[in-house]
């Protein structure tokens, strides 16, 4: 049976609903917390999948973009503007309804930026950063983006860790929930766990649909062409530098959006979110999910992030993802789903038979 993209996303949403019902029915509703976080991480991973699998570019710094999104939103929604309310910019923002007065933990009142406005600014900042990094680098052929993004990731991590007003090693906490229509919100009291889960799943489903559409469309075809034979794509009039740049910026924006929602959901963010190991983890997931396979990446990302968040890999979390990356590159560079188990079995059988016959194995 051949399902179109809309049908596929529908099935995904239905399966997600099934998982939720199963978790609640089994009395293990608390698992939804990690499932929700896993969905947000997957949002970032999908952008990297587009970048790596379709544009053929490697980023070693996407955790940096997640953190730029998360920290920007965290700062703007926690920084009290009350002392500055007389300043023209603050006063004008308040007049335009861009600010929000909310109670703080101690009964006082804070004047902060509206979460929606903060979210837009956070994504815009990550987009701008991606442009600035990408413009010079993506004019070059080869894997220079990997090096440049590694640098960006490291800088963001160091800044987050070393800056007092970003909370240094503690990060930023008491980030308010992100209000949504109909009284729902991202984050907030534990009672909203189920709603939160569905919000994350809906966001992920929507992003997936947009990306599935994109890779089928003219731009996606051109990206795959660049991946296949960059010279030939350029000779056909494909502006390879511009397409790679736009893909990189789109993936950075998705990462930042994921960072924003993750931060509101968790109620805070710390510097580890920006660490290079996180970036490597994202890349490992894309590798195992399959280069150029958005569904493979989505499935693997949800599963591996969930296991990691539940602590199944314990203290070896980084080791596991590092091994996954090395293993995939060695044995299945096209991803797990591209492996052909029957062909592999046949080859193995042939090998064993040769050995029984006393021949040297090939």
């Amino acid at each position: 049976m051949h399902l179109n993209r809309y049908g596929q996303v529908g099935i995904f949403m239905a399966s997600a609903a099934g998982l939720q019902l199963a978790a609640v029915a089994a009395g293990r509703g608390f698992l939804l917390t990690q499932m929700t976080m896993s969905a947000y991480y997957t949002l970032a991973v999908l952008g990297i999948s587009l970048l790596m699998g379709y544009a053929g570019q490697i980023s070693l710094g996407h955790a940096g973009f997640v953190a730029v999104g998360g920290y920007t939103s965290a700062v703007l929604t926690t920084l009290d503007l009350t002392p500055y309310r007389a300043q023209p910019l603050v006063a004008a923002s308040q007049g335009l309804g861009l600010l929000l007065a909310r109670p703080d933990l101690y009964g006082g009142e804070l004047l902060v930026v509206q979460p929606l406005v903060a979210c837009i600014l956070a994504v815009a900042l990550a987009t701008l950063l991606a442009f600035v990094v990408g413009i010079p680098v993506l004019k070059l052929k080869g894997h220079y983006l990997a090096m440049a993004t590694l640098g960006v990731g490291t800088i963001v991590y160091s800044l987050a860790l070393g800056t007092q007003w970003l909370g240094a090693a503690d990060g930023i906490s008491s980030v308010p929930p992100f209000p949504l229509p109909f009284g729902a919100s991202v984050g907030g009291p534990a009672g909203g766990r189920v709603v939160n889960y569905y919000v994350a799943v809906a966001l992920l489903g929507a992003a997936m649909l947009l990306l599935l559409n994109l890779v089928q469309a003219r731009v996606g075809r051109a990206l795959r062409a660049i991946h296949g034979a960059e010279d030939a794509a350029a000779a056909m009039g494909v502006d390879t530098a511009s397409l790679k740049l736009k893909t990189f910026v789109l993936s950075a924006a998705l990462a930042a959006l994921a960072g924003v929602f993750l931060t509101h959901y968790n109620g805070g963010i710390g510097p580890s979110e920006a660490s290079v190991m996180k970036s490597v983890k994202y890349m490992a997931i894309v590798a195992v999910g399959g280069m150029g396979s958005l569904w493979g990446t989505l499935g693997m990302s949800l599963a591996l992030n969930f296991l990691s968040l539940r602590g199944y890999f314990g203290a070896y979390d980084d080791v596991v993802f590092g091994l996954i990356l090395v293993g995939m590159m060695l044995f299945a560079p096209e991803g797990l789903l591209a492996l052909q188990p029957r062909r592999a079995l046949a080859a193995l059988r042939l090998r064993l038979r040769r050995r029984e016959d006393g021949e040297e194995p090939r």
Partner: protein
Amino acid sequence: MTPFLEVSGVSKRFGGIQAVSGVSFQVRRGMIKAVIGPNGAGKTTLFNMVSGFSAPDHGTITFGGHPIHGCRPHQVAARGISRTFQNIRLFEHLSALENVMVGRHLRSRAGFLAGMLDLGWARREATAMRGLALEVMAFLGIEALADAEATSLAYGQQRAVELARALASDPELVLLDEPAAGLNMRETRDLAGLITRIRDRGITVLLVEHDMSLVMEICDEVLVLSYGEKIAEADPRTVQRDPQVVKVYLGEEEC
């Protein structure tokens, strides 16, 4: 006729090797012109300069009155120059039809937003692209290969797909880099007919070729290069009788 492609005094050096030195020539609209010469004569370097893959050290290249030296490949393509490659470069993992559709990239405009939102006009544009790509494939007699993975096709078929891709952008000038390489005699004969029909569609053809019978049969003019320099430029008959050409090129062939 006014010159259509005008190359004047272009030179290109790679390290210690002067690949092309001071070559000038013109291509008039509607003609088939060949660039020939022994291996290492600078033919491919010349092609790469015309198509924007490398910038000449000296000299100018204009196309339809616009300077194109120093333009990047996609900008040259946007001016109406399309090309094939000596070593076939098809897009891996794309079907033959999709390969040809990428050739229509220039003539379509759906971007990131239209693609992501699956807008109606972008869909209609994609359908039109598909139709036109199939039409070009039918013109070359390869529409039956549309759904095959391009890089898994037979060599001659891959050449045809590459040609279809180059034609799909409705170019004014198409550069064919050794289109007969690796083809058998029969396929080469078919190719000769095909190139003539491409010209008859109003597309100017500039080709690099080693197959002399093909060059002599279909070309209006031949440019001969040797060690990066132009040594002759005339109609095929004259070139064949040129003593210098016979010495450096045809003479070697007859040994």
